[in-house]
């Protein structure tokens, strides 16, 4: 039984004619001006399938301008699976992502350098020295293996967190580019039984990561049936450039038939048009060409349509996730993915501000609600991200878990049946026969069944907002829950067969 996520009635921002116009615009972009490709293999693959390949030079690098006829793209995209399974150590935690079914699942994301701890300190009023108040203060720490493992343990125990996409960049002194991949995957897999997704730092480590995952999944065949990991690759750098190393990574992952997100993250106003229709036409072209590449390499490679469109700030050209345009871009992309029947890896729940609080809540709730309503199959970045995507805050992740659970209640389908209408009529009749005219009695069974939303879990009763203090308490409670580690025999096999794992990882 896979995780259920939440099935929504999708909000359609674009009409079908808009979707088709954007589709045609994307194909027109891929035909002319085309895609600048810095990876020789990809250029050859598209050339072999009928694209025009024009050798060029950019700076000191060889590259090829690919002018790709629309049919190559549409045929290849058509070959991509419409349902993708993301497996999990505990198969009850696997995700079935069906491109035609708007069932939304929530995941973390980014690879933030910073980890934000929240401490509680007592402050005394200068005006009234007898008046004390507890207030959160923040400490920025660097991402480490230990903290990545902590985040995975939180994911394991927070109900709305469906899939673990590594949120923290591990920067320990003994972590290098060559051992980073195996250690980050191991720290994640050993601390959550949910699906683990990550990018790959070094292509040379791909087979070690796959070997480890096969051992943990129970063998090569079991891994095929239950792919407990998947990868993200940003094959196309916006605007419209196949990057050499990530493109090669995508090709190799496709050859191994492992689930793969083809992610593109153009910035409206700098690396993509700022206007909605232009932005979406470009990002759609970038994702389609990436998806097409995987299918030309290995027809049937399980891929997700990875849309991460953002808007540029006009003061410093950083990403902005809090602006309404971010939601517009993302909702449109969800509709484009659905048009092709591809499962959509979408984006929501990020704040531009550096610390949890009012601004963070406002910014992230916009996208938590609106992007969810659009009905993507997978929303990444949904937990704990602040300062755009540079900081992961575990207390914020606890808040996000609660807020997403409220969003899920909000978007769930109404149930209007003859039986329920009859029950309501009976309640009205009975209440009108009482002196108090209150329906409170009839609330009770709904309260017990979980049909009614409980109070805000971090509610403050007094004249101080204690949301963060309460969320921090919950985080501490969650971290005290027993982890569900991989069994000892399997861990020993992993350490015997997979090079690069640090001995101290056994403690995580």
């Amino acid at each position, binding site marked *: 039984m896979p995780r259920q996520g939440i099935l929504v009635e999708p909000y359609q921002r674009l009409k079908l004619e808009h979707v088709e116009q954007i589709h045609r615009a994307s194909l027109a972009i891929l035909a002319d001006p085309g895609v600048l490709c810095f990876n020789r293999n990809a250029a050859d693959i598209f050339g072999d399938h009928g694209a025009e390949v024009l050798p060029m030079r950019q700076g000191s690098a060889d590259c090829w301008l690919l002018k790709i006829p629309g049919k190559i793209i549409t045929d290849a995209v058509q070959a991509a699976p419409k349902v993708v399974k993301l497996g999990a150590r505990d198969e009850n935690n696997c995700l079935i992502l069906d491109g035609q079914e708007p069932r939304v699942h929530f995941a973390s994301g980014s690879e933030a350098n910073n980890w934000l701890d929240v401490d509680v300190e007592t402050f005394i009023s200068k005006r009234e020295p007898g008046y004390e108040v507890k207030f959160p203060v923040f400490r920025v720490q660097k991402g480490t293996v230990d903290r990545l493992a902590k985040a995975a343990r939180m994911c394991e125990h927070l109900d709305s967190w469906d899939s673990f996409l590594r949120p923290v960049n591990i920067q320990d002194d003994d972590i290098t580019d060559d051992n980073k991949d195996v250690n980050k995957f191991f720290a994640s897999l050993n601390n959550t039984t949910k699906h683990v997704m990550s990018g790959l730092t070094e292509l040379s480590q791909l087979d070690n990561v796959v070997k480890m995952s096969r051992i943990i999944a129970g063998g090569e065949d079991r891994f095929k049936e239950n792919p407990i990991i998947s990868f993200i690759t940003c094959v196309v750098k916006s605007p419209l450039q196949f990057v050499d190393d990530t493109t090669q990574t995508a090709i190799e992952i496709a050859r191994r038939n492992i689930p793969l997100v083809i992610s593109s993250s153009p910035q409206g106003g700098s690396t993509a048009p700022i206007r909605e229709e232009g932005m979406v036409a470009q990002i759609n072209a970038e994702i389609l060409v990436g998806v097409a590449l995987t299918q030309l390499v290995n027809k049937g490679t399980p891929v997700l349509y990875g849309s991460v469109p953002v808007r540029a700030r006009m003061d410093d050209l950083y990403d902005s996730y809090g602006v309404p345009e971010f939601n517009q871009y993302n909702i449109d992309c969800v509709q484009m993915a659905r048009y092709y029947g591809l499962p959509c890896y979408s984006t929501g729940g990020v704040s531009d501000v550096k610390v949890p609080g009012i601004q963070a809540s406002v910014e992230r709730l916009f996208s938590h609600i609106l992007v969810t309503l659009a009905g993507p199959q997978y929303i990444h970045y949904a937990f704990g991200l602040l300062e755009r995507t540079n900081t992961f805050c575990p207390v914020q992740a606890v808040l996000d878990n609660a807020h997403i659970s409220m969003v899920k209640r909000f978007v769930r389908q109404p149930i209007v049946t003859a039986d329920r209408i009859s029950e309501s009529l009976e309640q009205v009749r009975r209440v009108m026969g009482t002196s108090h005219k*209150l329906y409170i*009695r009839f609330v*009770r*069974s709904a*309260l017990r069944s979980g049909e009614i939303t409980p109070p805000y879990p971090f509610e403050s009763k007094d004249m101080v907002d204690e949301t963060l203090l309460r969320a921090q308490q919950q985080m501490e409670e969650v971290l005290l829950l027993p982890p569900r580690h991989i069994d000892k025999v399997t861990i020993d096999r992993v350490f015997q067969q997979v090079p690069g794992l640090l001995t101290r990882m056994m403690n995580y």
Partner: protein
Amino acid sequence: MAEDMISLIRENVIQGRVTQDDEGFDEGKVGQPGVSELTEKALAQGINPEDIIKRGFSEAMVVVGQKFEIEEYFLPDMLASAEAVGAAMEILEPHLVKSGIKPKGKIIVATVKGDLHDIGKNIVSILLRGAGYTVEDLGNNITPQAIVDAVAKERPQFLGLSALLTSTRIRMRETIELLTESGVRDKVKVIIGGAPISEEFAQSIGADGYGADGFEAVRVMEALSTNVEG
């Protein structure tokens, strides 16, 4: 036999079932007698009304209160139980008089003139009935004169005034002043409550008590009852 009946009444108070049409927490309760039907049966069997109240209702309400304290019960559960007791008390009332049992006390409640909000007053009424008080509810948007007339006529021990709006709480002061002018102020204890009401406000207008919520209203009544002759 009597013990079984009292036990059944207790169980149904805890389940918050007024009549046989009500659900409880356990499956299959609908169709089985609720507290009202059981109380009538108990009387028919000759069980002493005082036993029904003390060992049936009161003991059950202690359990309900404990469940509420430990957050096993929510406010709607508490109110359902109180409503069940209140309904059964109405059935018992004539028998109490016959048996010479002194009623706990009578309260007139009203939402003051200009205010149509009566949820709070209704909740307090349910809890008071559940606690064994006789409640006469005048309704909402009630003028000071109508309230004073009712007090003069019914001679209750208590008067409960409710307001939700800051703009209408002034009617509470006017009502208390009119009680004084009419010569009945010293015959009745006035308790007030509602969102814009505070202890300070209650004192400033000369009320005898203030309940921040329904439970406190009952506690205030119990405290004042010790100083009131029935």
